[in-house]
Structure formats: C-alpha cells, structure tokens
C-alpha cells in the first residue's frame, strides 16, 4: 500500500498494531480518549481528534479458552481470546493469544503485548517476559 493512500480508521488501527502499538483518538474538545475506530467522541460528540499511539501493552482483565473455535481458528491448537487493559489509560482492547492450553497458563493480570495484526486471527498478542 502506498504511503500516499488515505487509510480508513480500521486500516490505521491495523497499521499501528503491526508496530505493536494501539492507535487512539484524543478528542480535541474534551480530551476523552477512544480507540481509533470510533468516529465521534463518546462524551461530547465532537469529531475533531488528535491521533495518538500507545504501546500495545497491558494486563489481562478476563479471557476464555474455547473448545470449539469459529471459522478461521480451527487450525490453532489452543488459544485464549483476551480482554486486556492498556497501561496508563482507562481503555481495554481484545486480542488473540496463541499457545494457551489451560487457565493455569494465564492468571488474571498477566502482562501481554500486541505483536501484530494477522488478516485471519486479528490482533495477535503474546505474554511479556516478567
């Protein structure tokens, strides 16, 4: 993709994820922070945002390990779908964390980071080294 092309909000989010970042929108009117994919401010409904990136690192708030996976994930031996809270900001996002076989592999509050965005598996995570 040429750098001159205008990216959609989701394409920008994916591009940032591929740099291990989460792209956020900061409302220029009220300062509220949201994920890049939201187009009006949830608090004041203005549309003027400043784009900002944060490290895609945070702590697991909840997750699951499934025995029946949806289409596109059948070939993955075992993984967790994870909701994690980003560091230093009151925002969560969700992702795919491969290699998790059982709940003991992923206690709540485990540190995870974004490693990229895969067109089949979405936002791909890994556990960080403690």
């Amino acid at each position, binding site marked *: 993709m040429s750098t001159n092309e205008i990216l959609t909000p989701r394409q920008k989010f994916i591009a940032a994820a591929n740099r291990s970042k989460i792209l956020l929108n900061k409302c220029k009117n009220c300062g509220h922070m949201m994920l890049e994919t939201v187009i009006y401010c949830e608090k004041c409904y203005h549309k003027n945002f400043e784009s900002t990136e944060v490290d895609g690192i945070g702590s697991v708030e909840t997750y*699951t390990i*499934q*025995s*029946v*996976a*949806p289409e596109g994930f*059948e070939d993955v031996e075992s993984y967790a*779908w994870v909701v994690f809270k980003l560091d230093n900001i009151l925002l969560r996002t969700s992702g795919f964390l491969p290699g998790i076989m059982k709940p003991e592999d992923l206690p709540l509050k485990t540190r995870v980071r974004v490693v990229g965005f895969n067109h089949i598996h*979405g936002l791909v995570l890994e556990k960080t080294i403690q």
Partner: protein
Amino acid sequence: MTNKVCILGAGSTKYGKLEEGIIEIALNASASAIESAGISPNQIQAGYISNVFGVADKQVHMAPVIMSNLGLSHVPGLTIESACGSGSIMFREAFANVSAGFYDCLLAVGVEKVTHTGTAQSTTLFSYCSDFFYEGGNGASFPGLFASIARYYMSKFQADETDLASVAVKNHENGVLNPKAHMRKKITIEDVLKSPVVASPLKLYDCCPFSDGASAVILCSEEFAKNSGRPYVEVIGSGRGASPASVQGREDIATIPSTVMAAKQAYKMAGISPSDIDFAEVHDCFTIAEIIDVEDLGFFPKGKAAKAIRDGATSLSGEIPINPSGGLKSKGHPIGATGIGQVVEVFDQFTGKSGQRTVKDAKIALTHNFGATGASAAVHIFKKVE
C-alpha cells in the same frame, strides 16, 4: 404511550431440532397464535417478524413471504434483526405501533432455523453477532464471550462454578414441565460440573442449545381485546436499552447497561418497582447471563444473585421465580423467536395454560431479552387481566 396494548393470543412450535423449513415453522406458530386469539386472519393489519439467520435456510425478506403464505399477501410486513434480542426488540416496535394507534390488531412472529448447519457453522454464524473486528475476528465464539464475562464476574464477586451450575439445574427443573422445551431433562450440579468445557469457565450445561422454533403473539388495542370476549393480557411497561457493542467497551464487565436502561424505562412506564414483579422470563443464554440479569433488573443487589439462586430464591416456589418456562437454557434458544417465546410464556401463565409450571397467584410478569452480549435489549412488563 397513548393506547393500551394487549396480547389476545399466543402460540409456539416445539423448540428443538425441527424438520420443517423456516417458513413452515413460522406459519405453524402464527396459525397457533391466530387460533388462540379466536380472530379471523383478515383482522390482522400488519405482520412483524424477527429473524437472524434466515439466509442459512435460503430465505431473507422474511416478512412478505410469511404474510403471503398465511394468505395475507396484502398485509404489510416488516422483518427486524437484533441478534438474540430480535424477538423482544421486534415486539417493542409492534407494541409502539398499536400504542400509537396505527394498528388495532397485528401479528408478531419470531422464527429461527439453524440446527441443520451443525455446531461448527452455527458457532461461526453466531460469532457474526459480536463486534466482529474486536471479538469474532480475534477468535471469540459466543460461549467464549460469555465465558470471559463469567470469569470477570466470578473474580469480582468470588462466585464459583457451582453458582453457575445452580442456574442450569433450576431451569432444567422448570423445562421438564414444559412440553415445548428443547431439553426436557433433569440435571444435577454434578452433571453440570462434569460436562465438557465449552469455553472456560463455561461447561456444556452452562450453555443453551442451538434450537429451531417459532413463537407468535397477537397484539391489539384494549378495545379490540375487550370486544373479543376472550382472555387477554395487558402490556403495562416497555423499555429499550443499549450498551457498547463489545465486551471490552463496558465500564463494568459484570453488568449489562442495556438491561439496566430498558428495565428502568419499563418500570417507570408501568409505575411499579422490581419488588412488584411476580415472575420473570430473562435471557439466560448462558448461566452467567441469568445471574447478571437478575441483578441488573433489580431483583437482587449486585454480587448477591449467585447465592440467592443457590438458596432457591428463583425457583418456581421461590420469592421471585425466574424462567418458569425453562428459559433459553432448557426451553431452547431459536434466537429470532426467543423474545416472543417469553411473551408466549407470560400469556400461557396468565390464561391458565402453563400446567404444573404455573406460578401461583402471579399477576405481574416481566420479560427480558438481549442481543449478542447485551448490546441491545428490551424489557416488557405485563399485567394479568382478571
């Protein structure tokens, strides 16, 4: 609200794995509701249809097809989709149209047929009801989404897997008494705990089944109901609510904001409080959902429902019976039909058709049904007309 709205007739197919096609299933429930109301089909002025996965049985544009096959091709129909909450959200629109005086009598029918697609494809189809970019697209199935909600709730309120299992055991006890239920089988706590893990911490018996089925009701004005000379039920409250579409976007993952919002509106319209409700049909797609529902509806304080359910407070003879029909868990969950099926249960309870599962002396009932993980929801309150 201007005019009072009543339910004059109701009918359901059996829920489960059905052989008929989706249109035939819808027609069977519709005919049952029309006959229950004692009206002639030509008194129906509009058709409201709820359905999600018609495309899986090669049919979209469902409303005119159903109306045509009822012999009512001149009657306008509308199809509404809001994932698992389609039925109640469609009911709300039908209610609003009668209340506003646009129609005196209409048919509301919810229908679904998915079992022929098999577990793998159904799991994929249901994942499309999530906020797919963040959830289904990252590998979350529907049991997985509710499992993540369950893990959060259990951690926050120190609930355990036996608490979840208590919901399943109670709903199966009720479902055994419902001849139209999908899963008419008594189960024990041990059966639930020993059943295979579907999405940790949820096990097979924590999950409702994929079901086929249809439910239909006849809504009408109070004048129309009175003139019929037949038993009817009055709708006294209606509320709609919304939540962030994704689980990650919820301020508190242990509550469903759309339920709270819809319930508040419905209680206000009815002029009553949660303590006035004699029984409720709530959205128990997974056991954790019922625990959260009954707190969000105001029946129990936050974090206290699990113990109350374990102690029998929500059983048929408890202080607030929940899901006397067996709920989604035992009666089944044909997703487009579920919200209307709850209204059918209220009608049957209030008109002497619920047999051994009748809630004694009940006069006020509530239905609660949501779409996906609660992104959309509707709550309705009904009064028995003596």
